[in-house]
């Protein structure tokens, strides 16, 4: 009986490399000839070796053909993409696209001056808004996670705030807050300027998003951590403060950065209430100098501040990881 085990398995077929597959893939990979040729040569040799029964060598060749095919795919697609972009910007209609976007980007000092002045307003507004969001959203998240039946109304209110402000378009909230508060002339709020109203609007909108990020982070910390804190006699609040929230914050840095980048870009919305921030000025340049490149410059400014933040966040995470995690 034991001799029959595996009798149905065609042993030879399993051992012969899939020469045909490699050959087909190699022909396709000729689209990127630098590596495609190598793939083809190897697949042809693999076929020859397989035919004369040198299975092991054939497998080696076949494997190399396969690797070169993947190189063709990886590098080939990128090269074609770059070529496409070059055609789009340089050759199509005599480079009309790059004329529109980049014409005098490097030399229009006047525009740069104006835009940088405007952008400084954006920076001030988002820095203030981010600091306030960090605090406000944590408060909302902690309220929403309060334990016990007694706190159910607080949890409900916190949830209602989050639901409400996440569902409203930021631009609408800016209109409502800026013009609404100006009209209402409430005590204390009456003397704020338009920029400060804008900060309030952005904090309300992004506080709702970020409170959910905080909440997810806090809930991702295993309950045994809270139990360990409580078992040492720390109160619920102390356990949150010293044990749970610090761990949650470390975990939510990437999504937090996501929302902050969103907030930074949405500072461009405040041009709708007449603040001459970067987008408003780009629009003005477009109208007065009849050049579109102000928009490109504004775009470059946003890119220039976002990328360093992404790297800085990665660095922060890595530093913490290197410090606290086993090698």
């Amino acid at each position: 009986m034991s001799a029959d085990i595996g009798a149905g398995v065609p042993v030879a077929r399993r051992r012969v490399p899939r020469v045909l597959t490699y050959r087909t893939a190699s022909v396709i990979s000729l689209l990127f000839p630098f590596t495609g040729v190598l793939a083809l040569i190897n697949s042809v040799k693999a076929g020859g070796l397989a035919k004369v029964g040198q299975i092991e060598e054939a497998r080696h060749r076949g494997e190399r053909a396969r690797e070169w095919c993947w190189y063709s795919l990886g590098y080939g697609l990128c090269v074609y993409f770059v070529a496409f972009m070059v055609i789009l910007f340089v050759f199509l209609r005599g480079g009309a696209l790059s004329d529109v976007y980049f014409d005098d980007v490097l030399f229009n000092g006047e525009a740069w001056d104006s835009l940088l002045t405007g952008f400084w307003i954006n920076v001030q507004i988002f820095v203030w808004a981010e600091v306030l969001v960090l605090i406000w959203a944590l408060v909302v998240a902690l309220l929403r996670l309060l334990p016990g039946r007694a706190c159910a109304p607080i949890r409900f209110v916190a949830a209602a705030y989050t639901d409400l402000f996440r569902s409203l378009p930021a631009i609408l909230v800016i209109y409502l807050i800026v013009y609404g508060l100006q009209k209402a002339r409430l005590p204390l709020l009456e003397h704020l300027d338009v920029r400060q109203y804008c900060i309030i609007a952005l904090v309300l909108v992004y506080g709702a998003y970020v409170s959910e990020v905080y909440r997810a982070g806090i809930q991702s910390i295993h309950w045994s951590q809270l139990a360990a804190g409580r078992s040492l006699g720390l109160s619920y609040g102390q356990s949150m403060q010293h044990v749970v929230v610090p761990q949650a914050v470390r975990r939510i840095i990437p999504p937090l950065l996501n929302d902050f980048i969103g907030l930074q870009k949405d500072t461009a919305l405040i041009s709708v209430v007449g603040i001459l921030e970067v987008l408003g000025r780009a629009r003005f340049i477009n109208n007065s100098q009849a050049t579109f490149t102000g928009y490109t410059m504004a775009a470059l400014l946003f890119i220039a501040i976002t990328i360093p933040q992404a790297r800085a966040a990665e660095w922060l995470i890595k530093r913490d990881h290197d410090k606290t995690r086993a090698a």
Partner: protein
Amino acid sequence: MAFLQLQGVHKHFGANHVLRGIDLEVERHQVVCLIGASGSGKSTVLRCINALEPITGGVIRIDGDRVSGYGVDLNDLRTDVGIVFQSFNLFPHKSVLQNITLAPIKVLKMDKGAAIAKAMELLERVGLTEKAHEYPDRLSGGQQQRVAIIRALAMDPRVLLLDEITSALDPELVAEVLNIVRELAAEGMTMMLATHEMSFAREVSSKVCFLHDGVIHEEGPPEQIFGDPRQERTQAFLKRIVDAGRL
């Protein structure tokens, strides 16, 4: 009156009736071991004593004070009753030293310098001085558990509860943790252990309780429980342990 007293303690998790009337007394300086199959309620008993789980019936007293039920200051109770968990539960974002000193500083309002001095003293006792500024994830399981024991001891508890503290350890790391428990027992620390280490239970305990289905089926001195168990269920449980080569 016994130092630690459980009277008719019941615990329900929803419809699940986990503890069905636990009566237990622990005298000062006693080491009481809870043995029994997984799910028999050993851990739950310990978690109820320091109120990580609220009990649903019965009374728990420490030194005559009722510590269960309405109106008890749980934070105060827990400074008296330390617990060490199976999975260590150290704080991964804090160094060993910070793990140990957090509660003494925040709860007992100890001076920071004094808390650190005390922590270092305790660390030296278990041979982990050089790990004071290391983070938990960089320690072996045995080292982590020793730190967890010290973290509980730094609060000067009157009772120490040890919840299967060696179950998550590689076999060769078990001894370094048990040695500390042995020393604490010799010094007269009042302790309750839930454990699967039968020979250790036999060696250190003043009393062994066999739990089955949320009830203490049999209790007595270790020689009697291990040498001459009277209840059928205890006999069956110990036979399985012996068959597995664990006793």
